């Protein structure tokens, strides 16, 4: 996939090369976006946007990183952008009723259940996704990339443009934060 001839075909605007790119990567990009935004429709829109951006900016791809890193970078950027937009909307949600421009589903997606979770683990996974959403941005991305897509420390570091050590620290902090959130939850919801 990362061979120079394939990149060259994309640069030339070859339709078959673009089709191959979409077909090869659409599930991984969708899965990553879904893990971050936790809403199927948003994840689908992001996936579309990722490939449109990739198609339009292929001439800027210098091949220094792999196609995987490049696509994941765009997907993470688009997902975080949407999360920030939603958070802003939520923060200033009291303004929208005044101007009458409130949109449905613009705020909290509610209880997210990933379609790939095993049936017997659904309840716990739902809780874990809620806790992941509360993590700081970088920790959320690192944790999601590892758990959802099984990316290695090196691959995550390439996406986040940081070192493997920094990713390791991010993941450690993410796990510890999740542990705290979940412990608090179970302490207050003793009978569940």
């Amino acid at each position: 996939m990362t061979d120079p001839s394939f990149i060259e075909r994309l640069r030339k605007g070859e339709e078959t090369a673009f089709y191959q790119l979409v077909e090869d990567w659409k599930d991984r990009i969708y899965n990553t976006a879904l893990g971050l935004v936790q809403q199927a429709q948003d994840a689908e829109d992001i996936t579309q946007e990722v490939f449109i951006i990739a198609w339009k900016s292929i001439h800027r791809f210098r091949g220094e990183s792999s196609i995987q890193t490049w696509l994941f970078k765009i997907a993470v950027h688009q997902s975080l952008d949407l999360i920030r937009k939603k958070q802003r909307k939520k923060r200033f949600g009291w303004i929208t009723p005044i101007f009458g421009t409130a949109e449905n589903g613009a705020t909290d997606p509610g209880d997210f259940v990933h379609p790939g979770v095993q049936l017997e683990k659904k309840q716990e996974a739902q809780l874990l996704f809620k806790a992941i959403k509360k993590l700081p941005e970088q920790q959320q991305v690192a944790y999601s990339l590892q758990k959802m897509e099984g990316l290695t420390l090196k691959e995550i570091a390439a996406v986040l443009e940081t070192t493997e050590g920094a990713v390791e620290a991010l993941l450690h902090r993410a796990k510890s934060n999740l542990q705290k959130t979940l412990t608090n939850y179970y302490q207050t919801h003793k009978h569940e």
Partner: protein
Amino acid sequence: MNKKKNIQEQVAATLSSLDGLERASANPHLYTRIRAKLDQELSSWSWIAAFLSRPVVAIGLVAVIIILNILTITSNKKGTEELNDQLVTLAQDYSFQPSNILENGINQP
């Protein structure tokens, strides 16, 4: 003690709930949608280009630009003439004379 252990177990179970997670699949018609969106974007640009290249629109735009240029030039000219008139009147009122030889136009030997 037992309660604490129980909570720890629940936390551990929750943290491992994503183990063995199957990858979610994107819409099978994703490529068609992307292609349609790209074509739509392209067609909106070509619509703008087609609109601007219509003879009536193009000639109209050129005419507007020429009129704006003429207006700017004439307003500038008027302003300079008025300023010159004022200076001449002022010079006559105060009987200004050229103060040196060079301004008198006398050539030195």
